[in-house]
């Protein structure tokens, strides 16, 4: 288990297992979500992202494992543990024939206490105060998504679970949601969002966990995970064959290929790659090889994801 740098965690999942009809969907998942952060839970469709959230929320029973929310056992002390959580699973759903305000009053009633006093503030937070008395059936997808977040905020949660929150949003909606998540984190809340939109997660999240076949294959700070991948190098030169021979003995080089433009290879880390490309450039020039250019590209989350989930070389997964 990769221990996160922050000492305080809001969500601890330990050895969680859930299977359906003999098929293990959540397989010994361990997860640590720090306080006040955005945490991406990534996996291809069918990897068990939604199921994990449903188990955490008690919407479906677990097979084994423990979940602690803010230190409280989510199964043994369900009411108190979930009072710290706001969640949208799959997509926010409401009674379409009544107003947004009435829907939030119903949600607040389920929360109990003073949740109803936060309705105005929550609607203001997601910029829906003007449309509080409009029937939800007339809302756009983006507005419903924001209303869902307003509903989450009624309990003044420390942790928000958002399942594929970017689905169905246009670019403006995604941008706005990203800003909102950032704002929620600045307020001291943690946001655990599941997604297969890696680009969006890379822009939104500080921490990620990558899931494959129901198992968490890696988790930690986003930058650490990306930095842990290979860096690709392309050297354009006038004599690729000679360049290949000169660099063949460099043990830092992985998967070297020759093509018409030059040679391309990978280096295990970005730090190594910076040093290695400088040395390679000097070596080639000293041996009368004309170097037209060196392009070094670090990993994207998507490439790292594909490496870790052994999907590299396969077609990129798509939307459901």
């Amino acid at each position: 288990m990769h221990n996160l740098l922050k000492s305080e965690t809001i969500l601890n999942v330990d050895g969680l297992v859930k299977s359906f009809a003999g098929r293990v969907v959540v397989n010994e998942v361990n997860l640590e979500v720090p306080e006040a952060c955005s945490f991406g839970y990534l996996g291809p469709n069918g990897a068990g992202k939604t199921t994990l959230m449903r188990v955490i929320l008690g919407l479906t029973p677990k097979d084994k494992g423990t979940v602690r929310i803010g230190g409280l056992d989510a199964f043994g002390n369900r009411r108190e543990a979930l009072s710290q959580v706001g969640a949208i699973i799959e997509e926010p759903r409401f009674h379409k024939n009544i107003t947004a305000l009435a829907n939030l009053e119903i949600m607040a009633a389920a929360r109990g206490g003073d949740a109803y006093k936060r309705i105005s503030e929550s609607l203001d937070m997601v910029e829906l105060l003007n449309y509080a008395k409009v029937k939800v059936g007339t809302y756009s997808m983006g507005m419903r998504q924001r209303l869902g977040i307003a509903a989450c905020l009624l309990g003044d949660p420390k942790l928000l679970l958002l399942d594929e929150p970017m689905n169905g949003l246009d670019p403006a909606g995604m941008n706005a949601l990203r800003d909102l998540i950032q704002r929620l984190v600045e307020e001291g809340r943690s946001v655990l969002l599941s997604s297969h939109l890696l680009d969006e997660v890379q822009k939104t999240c500080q921490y990620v966990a990558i899931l494959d076949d129901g198992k968490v294959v890696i988790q930690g700070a986003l930058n650490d995970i990306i930095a842990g991948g290979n860096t690709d190098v392309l050297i354009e030169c006038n004599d690729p064959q000679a360049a290949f021979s000169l660099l063949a003995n460099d043990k830092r080089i992985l998967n070297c290929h020759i093509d018409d433009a030059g040679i391309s290879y990978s280096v295990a880390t970005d730090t190594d790659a910076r040093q290695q490309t400088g040395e390679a450039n000097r070596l080639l020039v000293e041996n009368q090889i004309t170097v037209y250019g060196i392009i070094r590209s670090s990993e994207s989350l998507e490439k790292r994801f594909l490496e870790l989930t052994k999907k590299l070389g396969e077609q990129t997964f798509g939307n459901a």
Partner: protein
Amino acid sequence: MTKSREPVYLLAQNEATKSQNNHGKIDIAHNEKPPTINPAKRSVLGSSVYILRHRKGVYITAWVLTFGILFLISVILEILHISDPHRFKTLGTLNKFGGLSSAMGFFTSVAGVLVATAGAVGNLSAGVLRSLVATGRSRMSFFFSDLVAVILVMLQMIVPTLVIFGVASYLLRSHSGFSGVLSFAIILRADLWVLLEVFVWTILAFGFANLFGSRSIAIGVTLLGELIITSLLSAFSSYPGWRQAFVGVTLRQIMPTALQPGVSLNRIETGWQAAIVIVLWVLGALFLGARRAMTREL
């Protein structure tokens, strides 16, 4: 909220620049000052009642079935009576009152089935139950608040109906020749039987709707029992014991005798038998529905 903050002007700015009216969505007004809203504090039961009363189609249909049809029948009968008093008796005769009570029991039971199924699976079919359960509140609290809401909404419809028709019938009471005069005691017994009939079918429908998770299936099953099976079993001249185990037959058998003059039914032995049959059916349906509601994957 945990910390003070400034308002976040996010999507309104993005979405305010575009009209969604071409898809039937609302236009987003520009630069409007946010209105003041005063959220109401609701209880879980209050929420269930609110949701049910805002199912306008169900609510109006239930009112029509409970009150509207009977009112129409009563008006027609009284007009006929006024036009030809010798041929058409007034509402206040025992025969007419008995027929009206039977009709009330039938139509209001159908209304109860519609309301009960809407109340039972309203949150589930709207996809809201998942969010409600995710708050940590127990599923049983939603189950029972929905049940009580259904009963309250039905009482709201049926009590005024019973009072209005009871008073009208009493005021118009007259001797029909051979079956006696309508009395307060007969009206009370008839009203209690109507209430029993309505709430038994209502609660059965509520349990079935929770069990199946489907409104249409629950309506089908309950009405099949109420309309078809009960009528088929009641049509036989003899009643072996196993037929009396069916709740519809039992309900029909305990209908006050004064309301069905001339009808000779093979009565069940004791009121206890009827009570046991009814209680077992009601508890059975509630148990199955509650069990499914507790274990359903959301």
